[in-house]
């Protein structure tokens, strides 16, 4: 008769919050995900701007004035950095989500991501130009 085998599997616990410190790729992932905080907060700020716009010229002037406060400038710089990181990571992953097969072969990843980066640059320039930023 076969000898009795002891089975007592051991499950190693992972850190519940700081697990992502175990490798840089997970830190980059959390940074990417954290961009949502700035994009969300910035969009809520735009909603506030619409409120001030609807309230009339004085209220709106106050909103523009608030944009010039040091806190608002610092927030904008962080928001710009994180939203740009969101754009870069989002477009870098487009070849995975939307591969294009032409005939037998797939378009190289660089072509699909590159087209998105070019589109991003174009959209940004058009928005800045239409808004009369330059």
């Amino acid at each position: 008769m076969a000898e009795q085998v002891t089975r007592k599997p051991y499950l190693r616990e992972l850190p519940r919050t700081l697990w992502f410190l175990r490798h840089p790729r997970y830190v980059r992932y959390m940074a990417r995900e954290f961009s949502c905080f700035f994009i969300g907060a910035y969009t809520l700020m735009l909603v506030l701007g619409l409120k001030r716009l609807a309230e009339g010229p004085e209220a709106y002037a106050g909103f523009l004035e608030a944009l010039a406060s040091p806190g608002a400038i610092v927030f904008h710089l962080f928001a710009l950095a994180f939203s740009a990181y969101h754009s870069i990571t989002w477009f870098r992953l487009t070849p995975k989500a939307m591969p294009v097969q032409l005939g037998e072969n797939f378009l190289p990843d660089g072509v699909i991501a590159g087209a998105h980066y070019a589109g991003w640059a174009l959209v940004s320039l058009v928005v800045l130009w239409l808004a009369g930023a330059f």
Partner: protein
Amino acid sequence: MAQSNKPIVWGPFAAGGTLTAFLTPALILLTLLAGLGHVPELLAYEALRAFASHGLVKLGLGVVIFLSLWSAAHRLRITCYDLGVRADTLVATLVYAVAIAGTLAAAVYLLRLPAA
């Protein structure tokens, strides 16, 4: 096992992620310029009021705000889970509610814009 209804929340997340990737950095640049004293022409009161009073622009702004808030809310929900907050239903209700409330508020302000 049944197929999930997750596409309801994931669809607008994916659409919003794409939209914000294209648009948000440029928008931030605009208000940053305004804060630095170089107010873009469109952000002057009269120009912006006239621009936003157009029906299609109102609709467009509403869609941009909804998708931006929704995709941020959905990601925040997952980030909370990743950071160890396991009360997913509570977090989801909260963040999606903020996204919807923000969109409704924007709609109300857009409809209240004074005509010229």
